[in-house]
């Protein structure tokens, strides 16, 4: 078989050689007729099919319509030869759109190729899916792509392509991919040795994590760990160093990923991150002379600064960053200036104090005059974000001055921002009115309707301002040309408040009328009708100019515009009524203040910013704006969860009434939220036994199966505890991608953190130790859950309860008999007492197992007090619960077993009812189970 297709080469040469378009068309018609004939006759071998399909593809690329050959392309895909398969896939991806019926025929071939052992076939199939994957295809094949991604036997390049294919499918059809279900498995790939795979998987994780923050929370640790390995430990292959920067693309992605999550509370993670960011900033302290090196460094640096700001705006890192940024915004490079300003706006949007930024205010204002419009835009955003009550006059003044020379594309946005700032930070109303009127007269066409509505609203609602506003508007209207918006403001304000200034010289009713009416002829119908309303108001307050006004109504009664005509006719009739008639007066009563409402301006500004693929984690504007946004985002996130949940639950689109569906939505939301948050516990008789044992002992085995063994050792002191987890690998292969995570139901009551980053590989037949810091803040009832997942051939996840219970935080108290009973009585009965009677089993000798009782009670950290109860079988205990938030809680206990009845009475009294109940439950559990 020839490797090159001569027929095809000849065909292309002919077409290239065609002097005129008509000749080209003729050549193609002829070829297509030939191909039609050949296809119709059938009996083509693979080579011929390949050749003809290739010709069809070429014709199609040239822009001609092609309506044959699809079937042949589909056949080619199932050919065993690579070159034929390749052409087949090429044809499928080029000729077919995602809803084409032919794709159904291809799905099976693609699946076969995905399952095949040949990596190249795998890749071809992945390419095809990534290029045309319609929803049907996505549904059918996402599973297989995922399998290929996670399969340990896949080559790196297959994994890369699989990750990107999955990403493409997710972007196109997010609901096809069970993102939460696959989370751990996909995240575990972030530990792959091949950095290329890591980059691709990180891209995928980024997209998925944006929508499934919780499910992908584990990626946080992974990202930190990877950054640590890249930046601090320099653990990467030389091929991934780009101008001596270790894989900047990956770094940028990881840093961005970290910004999606709220800052971690874990001190270990925080310190590592701090170190990473510090190193990154140190690395780029001095700019290199090599442009590419610089680019790579800056890319990472800006993302790192973004993350630093996201984590904590008060950290010294941010101060360093601010210094760096100050240098960048006066850089010679346009791109650096742009990014510097952008990041600074991020800082301004988040920081508590704007002081460090204000030092550079003059530089930023200068950037408004940058030669590059995007830089100017960023400077504007930054000024908008960093404006506060102190510098508002300066910034607004500067923006106003700049507005006159600003680029047209920028003006509308500027006007909005100036209007918002002026309103937000107005120190005096006079300043506000002055500025806004200057704004309107300067910007003219770029002033949206909202701006002047807002002015009218504010003036109407502020009584002190009205006279001043009327005067200023009048002065502004004196200018030979006034913009229509100004005329509107003037019309409204003079109509309402013109009478306030009418007695002063130069502001007489006649002058007011002349100045306003002289502008009316240049205005549109809407403005003119507004002016008519002004005139009727004047008829009421200025009887001296009534004849002129009536004349105008008279004239306007004959204009063509129906709105104007109607107003004029009505006003005319109104004005013609006799003097003593009170109707006019009533109609023209002064406007009542507007109900307070939020400014429409902000809405307008936010609307302007469309959403992009890679979400920003902040918006322009002060800190408040960001906090607000964060809140709404959370809310919508929860709602979104709820709605998907209801979809899953209902299955089919429900046609219930709205209320019903809303009710259903709420209920389901809670269910789903719980189940999705709490990992599913591993079950087994041994697990429970081990757990029960550990409830009242400080060390022992927590979990064991054929692959791993988990043991713990714990120590508690007051409200602080330490728990060492020993994880042993029992198999002769390493456990890779090892993730341990702790889930706490109520983080306000109990905090459990890792002392340092857990390792992610456990060598064969070795043990690793992880230390947990525990702090009890309040009384809690559910133990934390440890989730361990790892790769050993397949991916495995185990979730086990950690034996961290309330009683662990008890400390002994020594009490005498008198003391004990005094307190016992002091606490009194229910609700601060919790009592239960339960059966007990006797030991083999038919006796009460007193030693066990003592062991359990002591294990639960009660101090066993002897000589208090006369009955030696009865146990008495006392302890103090230490919590960091709620302080100390006393706890007393009496245990009275009865051998004859085989029953036992347990009474716990505590100063806190929750504690009493909880302690009683825990003890009863321990006492009744056999260990």
């Amino acid at each position, binding site marked *: 078989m020839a490797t090159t297709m001569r027929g095809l080469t000849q065909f292309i040469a002919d077409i290239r050689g065609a*002097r*005129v*378009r008509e000749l080209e068309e*003729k*050549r193609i*018609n*002829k070829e*297509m*007729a*030939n191909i*039609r*004939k050949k*296809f*119709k*006759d059938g009996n083509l071998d693979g080579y011929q099919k390949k050749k003809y399909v290739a010709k069809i593809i070429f014709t199609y690329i040239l822009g001609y319509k092609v*309506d*044959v050959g*699809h*079937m042949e392309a589909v056949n080619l895909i199932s050919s065993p030869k690579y070159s034929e398969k390749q052409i087949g896939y090429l044809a499928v991806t080029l000729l077919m759109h995602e809803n084409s019926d*032919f794709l159904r025929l291809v799905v099976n071939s693609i699946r076969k190729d995905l399952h095949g052992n040949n990596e190249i076939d795998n890749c071809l199939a992945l390419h095809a899916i990534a290029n045309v994957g319609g929803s049907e295809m996505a549904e059918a094949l996402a599973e297989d792509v995922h399998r290929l991604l996670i399969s340990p036997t896949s080559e790196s390049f297959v994994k890369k392509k699989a990750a990107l294919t999955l990403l493409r499918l997710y972007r196109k059809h997010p609901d096809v991919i069970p993102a939460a279900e696959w989370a751990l498995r996909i995240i575990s790939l972030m530990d792959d040795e091949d950095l290329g795979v890591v980059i691709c998987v990180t891209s995928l994780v980024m997209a998925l994590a944006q929508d499934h923050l919780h499910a992908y929370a584990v990626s946080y640790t992974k990202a930190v760990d990877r950054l640590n390995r890249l930046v601090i430990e320099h653990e990467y292959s030389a091929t991934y160093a780009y101008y001596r920067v270790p894989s900047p693309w990956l770094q940028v992605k990881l840093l961005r990923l970290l910004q999606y999550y709220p800052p971690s509370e874990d001190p270990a993670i925080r310190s590592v991150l701090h170190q990473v960011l510090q190193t990154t900033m140190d690395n780029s302290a001095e700019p290199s002379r090599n442009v590419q090196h610089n680019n790579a460094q800056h890319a990472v640096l800006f993302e790192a600064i973004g993350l630093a700001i996201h984590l904590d705006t008060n950290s010294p890192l941010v101060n360093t960053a601010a210094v760096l940024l100050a240098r960048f915004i006066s850089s010679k490079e346009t791109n650096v200036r742009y990014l510097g300003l952008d990041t600074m706006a991020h800082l301004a949007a988040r920081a508590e104090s704007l002081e460090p930024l204000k030092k550079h205010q003059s530089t930023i204002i200068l950037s408004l005059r940058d030669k590059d419009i995007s830089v100017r835009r960023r400077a504007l955003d930054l000024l908008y974000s960093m404006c506060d009550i102190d510098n508002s006059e300066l910034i607004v003044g500067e923006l106003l001055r700049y507005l006159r020379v600003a680029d047209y594309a920028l003006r509308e946005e500027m006007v909005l921002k100036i209007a918002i700032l002026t309103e937000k930070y107005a120190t005096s109303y006079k300043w506000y009115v002055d500025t806004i009127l200057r704004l309107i007269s300067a910007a003219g066409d770029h002033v949206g309707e909202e701006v002047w509505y807002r002015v009218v609203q504010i003036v109407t609602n502020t009584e002190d301002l009205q006279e001043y506003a009327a005067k200023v508007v009048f002065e502004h209207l004196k200018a030979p040309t006034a913009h229509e918006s100004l005329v509107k403001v003037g019309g409204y304000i003079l109509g309402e408040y013109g009478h306030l200034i009418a007695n002063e010289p130069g502001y007489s009713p006649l002058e007011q009328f002349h100045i306003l009416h002289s502008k009316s002829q240049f205005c549109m119908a809407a403005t003119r009708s507004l002016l008519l309303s002004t005139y009727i108001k004047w008829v009421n307050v200025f009887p001296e100019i009534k004849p002129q006004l009536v004349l105008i109504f008279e004239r306007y009664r004959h204009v063509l515009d129906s709105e104007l005509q109607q107003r004029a006719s009505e006003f005319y009739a109104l004005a013609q009524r006799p003097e003593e008639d009170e109707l006019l007066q009533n109609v023209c009563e002064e406007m009542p203040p507007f109900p307070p409402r939020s400014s429409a301006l902000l809405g307008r500004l936010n609307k302007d910013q469309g959403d992009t693929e890679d979400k920003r984690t902040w918006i322009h504007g002060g800190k408040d704006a960001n906090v607000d946004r964060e809140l709404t985002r959370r809310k919508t996130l929860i709602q979104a969860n709820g709605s998907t949940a209801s979809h899953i639950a209902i299955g089919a689109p429900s046609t219930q009434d709205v209320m019903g569906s809303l009710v259903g939505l709420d209920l389901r939301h809670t269910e789903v939220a719980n189940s999705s948050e709490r990992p599913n516990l591993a079950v087994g008789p041994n697990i429970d036994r081990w757990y029960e044992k550990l409830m009242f002992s400080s060390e022992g085995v927590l979990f064991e199966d054929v692959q791993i063994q988990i043991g713990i050792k714990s120590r508690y002191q007051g409200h602080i505890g330490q728990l060492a987890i020993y994880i042993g690998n029992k198999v002769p292969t390493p456990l890779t991608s090892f993730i341990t995570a702790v889930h706490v139901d109520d983080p306000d009551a109990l905090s459990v953190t890792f002392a340092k980053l857990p390792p992610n590989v456990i060598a064969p037949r070795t043990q690793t130790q992880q230390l947990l810091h525990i702090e009890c803040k309040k009384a809690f009832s559910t133990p934390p859950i440890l989730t361990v997942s790892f790769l050993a051939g397949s991916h495995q996840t185990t979730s086990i309860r950690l034996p961290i219970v309330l009683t662990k935080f008890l400390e002994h108290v020594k009490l005498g008999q008198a003391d004990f009973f005094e307190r016992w009585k002091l606490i009194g009965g229910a609700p601060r007492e919790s009592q239960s009677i339960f059966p007990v089993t006797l030991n083999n000798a038919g006796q009460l197992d007193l030693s066990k009782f003592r062991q359990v009670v002591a294990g639960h950290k009660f101090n066993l007090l002897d000589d208090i109860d006369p009955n030696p079988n009865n146990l008495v205990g006392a302890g103090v619960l230490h919590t960091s938030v709620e302080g100390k809680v006393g706890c007393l206990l009496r245990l009275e077993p009865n051998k004859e009845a085989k029953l036992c009475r347990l009474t716990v009294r505590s100063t806190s009812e929750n504690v009493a109940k909880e302690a009683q439950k825990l003890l009863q559990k321990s006492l009744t189970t056999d260990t």
Partner: protein
Amino acid sequence: MISAFFIFNQKGEVLISRLYRTDFKRSIADVFRIQVVSNPDVRSPLITLGSTSFFHVRVNNLYVVAVTKTNANAALVFEFCYRFINICKSYFGKMDEESIKNNFVVVYELVDEINDFGYPQNSEIDTLKTYITTESVVSATQAPEVSSRITAQATGATSWRRSGDDVKYKKNEAFVDVVEVVNWMGSAKGTTLRADVDGHIQMRAYLSGTPECKFGLNDKLVIDRGAVGTSGPSSGLADRGGGDAVELDDCQFHQCVRLNDFDADRSISFIPPDGEFELMRYRATSNIKLPLKVIPTVTEIGTTKVSYDITLKTTFSPKLSATNVVVRIPTPLNTTDVDVGILGTGKAKYVPAENVIVWKIARLQGGQECSLSAMAQLTSTTTRQVWARPPIDVDFQVLMFTASGLIVRFLKVFEKSNYHSIKWVRYLTKANGGYQVRF
């Protein structure tokens, strides 16, 4: 008026560029190249971009372009372009890229001569040829005399003809060719949807001196008036032509024709230029005689076959014959193969490059009839599209036949010396892509 004049080749390269006014820069040529030459969607010969209008005429893969910024008379501009093309043909024999490149000096001379500051000037080929010559040498001594004569002619009353004594022929002859292009669109049932004739009368005059010619046609207006004006049996001519007088829709004449006379009594009188020229152009839309009848029967059999049955009939007298008959029968776009059978004369084959069956008949006698039957095999397509069924197209030529029915009644030549002259008249009707029938 015309501000700039360009000639582009197929690729959009500028071959000739002449700016008559200062309101354009040379870069305006780029605008045309980008907007027209490299834009396959543009088919209109007149493009207006902003206030600039481009008029272009395509001839042999050349673009002849005139550019104007004013509201110029479009017909005049196009006439100018076509006139230029005719001049080039007459100078160089043909007009294509090669001849323009080889003779660019002459082309510039011509372009400058026939247009001044954007206003078209004398573009009479005979006159131009007297002073823009392709031969190089004119002896210096003769020059003043020659030039004065040229001046006299170019500015005289008959600028298209040299003065009487210079033209002498041993045999005084005049040839008149009436050439008609017939356009017809027929419906599937055979009724006429649209029919018209574009005709022109080409004349070659080899007449000595300054002859005064009078030309008569069977123009309906003339005939009818003749019938009214001259009563009784004496008006023999009118009787002869009255039955089949032709209604001419609009006539255009060579500049030698005295339009005043024509306007007054529709008589065509003129002093002809020496040699070949186009005497008149006309159009006729009523009473068109169709020389060929096409009866198509096309049936689609299922989705895999189309059968054709095409019959061709001539309607003119058996003494005449149609030559070079070419019938183009469109086939569906997904045709794989066609079997053709012919009853009568000619050869037919399927031409896939154009998606048609081409049926060629060298000669078809009047009254004769022939037919073709064919079967096209189709292949299945991905997207089912209904075949648009473009019309069948017939090209042919019929000598000594006019589709409009126009007849030259007389051509009279008067000259001072009163010599005898011989007149020849020839008729030709042809169809050239505009003779179509739907099916």
